[in-house]
């Protein structure tokens, strides 16, 4: 199964503070082990919400709200997409993250009080949609996925 792992935003990520060398070192080692274990499929960090926007839908109406969005606890600062055998395997990987950071000597900033939570959410596979999709639509979705992958490879190379 594939899961999306969501990293919460905090005061620093929302202030646009870039990660220091120790944090980067810990993350690179963690990612390395994820890649080696065949778990890692994708991962991105997000800029502060001040650089973003929200669009609200109500029938035909669309309203645009510019960032920042103040409820930092509900914002995400990054995500991974993982291939795992079970939710428990994903939980075990998530639990290990702070150890990697600690090993590189990273400590949370002084103003970093309180807890933080990482959310793990299973991702839908096209096969799980199968019953709802007509054969034409299913074929189209699969074909779109191929072209999306080709596009992603082109942008990153």
């Amino acid at each position, binding site marked *: 199964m594939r899961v999306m792992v969501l990293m919460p935003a905090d005061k620093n990520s929302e202030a646009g503070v870039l990660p220091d*060398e120790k944090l980067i070192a810990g993350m690179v080692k963690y990612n390395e082990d994820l890649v080696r274990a065949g778990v890692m499929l*994708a991962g991105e960090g*997000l800029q502060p919400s001040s650089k973003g926007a929200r669009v609200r839908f109500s029938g035909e109406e669309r309203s645009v709200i510019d960032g920042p969005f103040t409820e930092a606890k509900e914002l995400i600062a990054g*995500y991974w997409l993982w291939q795992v055998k079970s939710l428990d395997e994903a939980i075990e990987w998530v639990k290990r993250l702070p150890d990697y950071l600690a090993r590189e000597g990273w400590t949370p900033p002084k103003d970093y009080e309180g807890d933080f939570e990482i959310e793990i959410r299973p*991702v839908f596979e096209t096969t799980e949609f199968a019953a*709802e999709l007509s054969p034409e639509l299913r074929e189209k979705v699969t074909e779109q996925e191929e072209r999306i992958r080709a596009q992603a490879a082109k942008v990153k190379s």
Partner: protein
Amino acid sequence: MRFMVLMVKADKDSEAGVLPDQKFLTEMGKYNEELVKAGVILAGERLHPSSKGARVRFSGEKRTVIDGPFIEAKELIAGFWLWQVKSKEEAIEWIKRSPFREGEVEIRQVFEAEDFGRELTPEFREQMTEQETRSRAQASAKLKS
């Protein structure tokens, strides 16, 4: 530049695990087709209800696992796209054309290697690029299987 487009307001249906109807799926298929043709879309996934997920809370040395569903007022993500566009405005224009009739979408700029400072040494950068390549190969192999 790349933007992540998040469906940030999971509705009752997505949390109940109810799949969208054929009409909406058809409209969404057409919309995705436009995005693909324009070279905008790089990835897109829909998430299972939070009842199938979990959270891990970190508090000092303590790690607590909390099983879903997450019923508190917190916003729940129901899905996302990753888009390649020229500006935030272009992303907003695209999302306005989506078939959504309710809910809210959040548009967030994605970090590129060049957005990092000196902390990202050449060695780290090289390692990260190389990890990305291997992750992509892994994702591609997975989808083909």
